[in-house]
């Protein structure tokens, strides 16, 4: 590695062709898109209602009639899996949005105002000291388990990650000459924060948010699996695996398909995140 690569020499090719050049990003987007389409169009696609019981048909292995088999209540796993996608994606997305809202605000304030920084940075550090699942569990325990509290808890859990990145980037950007130029022009601080700082943070935030989305989905699954998250009769991939746990070894399809769904969703999100990082800001590659 003797010669460092030089900044982009050629003009920028279009975004679409850039996406297509990155195989993994493309794969990620396609898979994620497919999952989203399945989830959103679940009512149209699902051959059965997700909660329709049919006890006579319980624990049927995958077949032409039940593509993914049935569960212990005779519910169609395929239908449930795609319906569960709705909620799993919803939890992930909502938690990510919440984390972004909290994290960006905190990070910007901390990065921009020295006085606030002392406290905010320390809160961020302290929050990061709690392992994510553990903090989420405790918050859910304190707030009472429900879909909403899981979202809130995960939002709170992941907010510091964004806050930290936003803060760190803000601290760097704040010192850049173009900020100084704006200050020299007399541009008001709030405008500098939005137009100059936040705008330059879009890429790292987007990248990080993608990963948080993935982690939040995993975390939701873990919480549900442990029985401290979403109520078990609400179909999410986590609750489905938790239910299927009793049948591992006898009806493996109950855990297999929702498991694959999680892996695919999380993997595609990570591929997208990684691809976005490459695409938007190669310098970010270092922080994960």
């Amino acid at each position, binding site marked *: 590695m003797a010669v460092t690569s030089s900044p982009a020499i050629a003009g920028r090719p279009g975004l679409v062709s850039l996406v297509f050049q990155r195989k993994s990003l493309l794969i990620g987007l396609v898979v994620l898109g497919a999952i989203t389409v399945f989830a959103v169009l679940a009512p149209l696609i699902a051959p059965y209602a997700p909660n329709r019981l049919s006890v006579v048909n319980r624990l049927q292995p995958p077949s032409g009639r039940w593509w993914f088999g049935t569960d212990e209540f005779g519910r169609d796993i395929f239908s449930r899996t795609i319906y569960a996608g709705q909620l799993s994606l919803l939890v992930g997305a909502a938690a990510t949005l919440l984390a972004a809202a909290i994290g960006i605000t905190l990070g910007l304030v901390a990065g921009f105002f020295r006085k606030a920084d002392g406290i905010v940075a320390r809160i961020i550090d302290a929050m990061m000291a709690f*392992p994510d699942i553990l903090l989420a569990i405790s918050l859910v325990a304190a707030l009472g388990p429900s879909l909403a509290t899981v979202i809130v808890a995960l939002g709170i859990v992941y907010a510091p990650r964004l806050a930290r990145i936003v803060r760190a980037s803000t601290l760097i950007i704040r010192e850049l000459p173009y900020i100084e130029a704006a200050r020299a022009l007399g541009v008001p601080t709030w405008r500098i924060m939005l137009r100059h700082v936040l705008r330059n943070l879009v890429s790292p935030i987007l990248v990080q948010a993608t990963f948080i989305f993935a982690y939040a989905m995993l975390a939701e699954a873990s919480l549900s699996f442990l029985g401290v998250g979403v109520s078990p009769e609400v179909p999410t991939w986590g609750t489905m695996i938790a239910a299927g746990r009793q049948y591992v*070894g006898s009806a493996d399809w109950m855990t297999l398909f929702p498991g694959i769904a999680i892996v695919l969703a999380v993997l595609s999100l990570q591929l997208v995140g990684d691809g976005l990082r490459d695409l938007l800001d190669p310098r970010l590659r270092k922080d*994960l």
Partner: protein
Amino acid sequence: MTRYVIRRFLGMIAVMFTVVTIVFVIVRVAPGDPAAVMLGPDATAADIATLREKLGLDRPLILQYLYFLGQLLRGDLGQSIFLNMPVLSALAERAEPTFFLTLFSILIASAIALPVGILAAYKRGSLFDQVATTLAMLAASIPSFWLGLIFIQVFAVRFSWFPVSGYGGPDASFIVRLSHLILPATTLGIVSSALITRFTRASMLDVLNDDYVRTARSKGMGEFQVVMKHAFKNALIPVLTVIGLTAALLVSGAVVTETVFSLPGVGNLVVSAVLRRDYPVIQGALLVIAALYVLINFVIDMLYLVVDPRVRY
């Protein structure tokens, strides 16, 4: 150097303090009267009042907070409602499996991640790199409980190579107890190796581009030496942080894994405590684990003193 140590130490104390405050707040956000929640519906009004008094809940919030701090300073984490024992002892009883689980997971993770990460960075863009990067991402996408279930099926049930659950009986030898840890540690190790692999790779990529690596090559040094001595040692510094933090965060994975493998560790305790609404245990576990994380962070900072001469003054 002393200055660095003191600064880090004070920083650690400050974060600890914040951690304590956050834990205090979390338990207080529980809707309703914590004492009533803790005691459960069986409790009589008198019981609740007694507990309120015992926990100091009848005092103004700030006094409660001070009382809480005072208790902590005396090393008192309170009393478990369900287990009828001090939270600290309950945690101590469960420390061993969690400790070894974390230790082995991190060893397994590092043993996978470091060589793979280094090689992937060195052969950037090669088939090996692509496969390794993809596998790492895949590993990071697998829910650890799911992997654990699969492992139990395959290695414990089908092949009977390892015990399915628990941590051995009362007189289980250390070896037996270790045998209980192999599957959970492998599960966690694989899942957490993903992060370390990717980080090692990224860190190595950075370092391989550094000028001193070029200097080393210009000395006529062999590639292996260049990579291991000059590049890796430098790349190790950020990787060390990640390994340390992963170790601390593994407790999180341990929550899930310990439940899947019925390991009587801290994570398992927390989950049971949540199900049993044993708030003092949740609070205590949160505190201890976060404190551990902060402490590990501090230790890593101190390790820098050894590894990186730049921070020595």
